[in-house]
């Protein structure tokens, strides 16, 4: 494989290979990550390269996959644990809230948990029920838990490296809808993309569109089609890290454009768009020329595959949302 042309899941895989080769404290484990190479092949080849002490299959025990990562990381390792699908993060909420996120805090910095929990998240791949949840907003609300969601192959590898290097826990949600949907130049060697920095994907002056992860490609598609259709200049921000959130980049953008649309896949009420809107309200209210419009999943469970495409925001719906924002229309 050359530098170019890695898919997002290949970027995960390459990132894991690179990090494990560079730092022998890195341990990868989870269900089926060994011989099977992960159900999406994200851990393909790792057990052959690094052996079964560093690449470990686990029982179906999400609680312990995450709980043991807290322990392993305090013991000097850099665990990168996999939860097979985002729908299986809820069982570990207790370990995230009560242990992972606060061991540094409880021990006044004596202990810390440099651990990464990876999980493919989101819908659109015709998976079974309970495989497609997008509850990042609930997780980003937990103090001390960093939540990172890459949107491109390049960012994926770079953010994963930063997450592994970071001294505190990171929940790393991978947009599985785009695992194999596109390719990008991803360097072979080690590099990092910093946590806590949003990326301006496109400069513009009329409206800011904010999204992350799985909704970045449809957002870009929507913006393209919109710019094709009408004379509008859109700024697009990829949040990348939901917690800690890069508020400056977002606030600065809105000060310039005066209008914003937020796009995410999780349910609307209490979704992460709410925090973005609240932040903008606090810091840039007087610049706001129109209500910030939210294009999101509905306040319903994500359907099984038969109807999931109706639940997920898609380019036409996103484009329509941006148009509403431009027209100054608020509301649902």
């Amino acid at each position, binding site marked *: 494989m050359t530098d170019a042309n890695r898919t997002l899941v290949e970027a995960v895989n390459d990132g894991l290979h690179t990090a494990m080769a560079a730092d022998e404290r890195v341990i990868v484990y989870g*269900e*089926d990550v*060994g*011989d*099977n*190479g992960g*159900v999406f092949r994200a851990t393909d080849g790792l057990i052959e390269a690094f052996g079964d002490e560093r690449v470990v*299959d*686990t*029982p*179906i*025990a*999400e*609680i312990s996959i995450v709980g043991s990562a807290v322990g392993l990381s305090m013991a000097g390792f850099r665990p990168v644990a996999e939860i097979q699908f985002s*729908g*299986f993060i809820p*069982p570990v909420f207790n370990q995230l809230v009560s242990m992972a996120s606060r061991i540094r805090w409880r021990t006044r910095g004596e202990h810390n948990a440099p651990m990464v929990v990876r999980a493919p998240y989101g819908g*659109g*791949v*015709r*998976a*079974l*029920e*309970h*495989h497609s949840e997008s509850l990042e907003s609930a997780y980003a609300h937990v103090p001390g838990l960093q939540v990172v969601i890459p949107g491109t192959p390049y960012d994926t590898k770079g953010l994963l490296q930063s997450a592994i290097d970071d001294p505190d826990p990171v929940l790393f949600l991978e947009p*599985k*809808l785009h695992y194999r*949907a596109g390719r990008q130049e991803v360097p072979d060697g080690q590099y990092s993309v910093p946590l806590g920095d949003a990326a301006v994907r496109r400069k513009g002056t009329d409206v800011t569109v904010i999204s992350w992860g799985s909704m970045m490609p449809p957002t870009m598609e929507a913006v393209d089609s919109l710019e094709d259709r009408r004379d509008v200049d859109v700024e697009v921000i990829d949040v990348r890290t939901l917690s800690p959130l890069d508020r400056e980049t977002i606030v600065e953008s809105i000060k310039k454009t005066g209008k914003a649309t937020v796009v995410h896949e999780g349910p*609307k*009420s209490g979704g992460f768009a709410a925090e973005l809107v609240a932040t903008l309200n606090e810091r840039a209210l007087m610049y706001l020329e129109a209500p910030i419009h939210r294009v999101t999943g*509905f*306040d*319903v*469970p994500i*359907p*099984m*595959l*038969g*109807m*999931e*495409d*109706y*639940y997920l925001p*898609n*380019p*036409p*719906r996103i484009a*329509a949302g941006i148009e509403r924002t431009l027209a100054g229309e608020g*509301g*649902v």
Partner: protein
Amino acid sequence: MSHGIEQPVPLGEGNSSIAACTISQPDETPPRYQLVNEDGEYDPDSLPDLDDEELLDLFEWMLLQEIVDERMVTLQRRGEMGTYASGRGQEASIVGSSYALREEDWLFPYGREAAAMLIQGMPLRDLMLYWRGVEDANMQKAHRVFPPAIAIGTHIPVGVGYAWGLGLGEEDAIAALFHGDGHPSTGEFQSGANFAGVMNAPALFYCQNNGYSISVPFDEGQTAAQTVAQKGMAWGIDGIRVDGNDVLAVYDAVSQAREHVADGNPTIVESVTYRLEAHTTNDDPSRYREADEVDWWEEREPISRFRTVLESEGILADGDEDAMRQELNQQFDEAKEAADGYESRGIEELFTYVYDELPPELERQLGEFERFLEGHPEAHDYIDHRPKG
């Protein structure tokens, strides 16, 4: 409430040997209950009390499981079905167990027991719709079938609660919680099994131990315990091991366990079997197991073993099986046609069943979405033509 002057913990005698005070798992693997051995041999007197028709019935259900599995996988390959989890190799385990349930019993499936759902009365059409990702398929209350618990372990506490409720009622019904050998590793399962023991909930924990949880072998990575049956010790409930490829043993063990359960004794039945096919249509088992292992089990597959019994009992005549298969395939064709004819009730479905009454915000979201779709036919196009993952 009160212990009077009793001590509150069961004390046990004092003993000055640590070894005597240590509880370990047995050195030898505990036996499996078996009525028909791997070579099809059996003691005719030990067979369960089933008449010829019932025996043929069992066989037919096993064939149906096999046919459904094969054809669903084919449909999936052709893009006409979502991810499917085949039960090939586990026909005896699936059929023998569910056939032993009573009319009034409730099934909590997890996904790899098509025939169990069908035996309960779920239409084959709905089974297809389920694997096509249609929520309507879960409308099986009349057949006492709950939605498969794809999120592993989630149905265990729920099923235990349901059983608890059944136990409080008049009916002598039980809840049969089907699961695999990976399930007992979860917190949900273990919390629920202990809870069942305390509540005397009439819950049957039916474990199809097919040797793997996707790629992870039961005995090399799932647990250090030798068996699932022995796990009952943790919860004060009995565990029975049965040869899961011997349909009559499964039937008999589950029948007896079911009565024990109905008396308020939650019980584990561990059915020792093997998954011959991939974990699901997304899985490539060659990554984690050798062909000769599969061959070893293929030689011991359950349909042949039962066929031998039926033949030596003179119940199954030449050509009977072909006729059955033809008939079952036709049932499948008809169900498939019915499934193809299914029409979704549209996007309203997404909104209306979250609560009893649509709250204002959901009503607004639905209304907006309807207006959007009306105004943007391209959205339908987008959805229809989007490459599916």
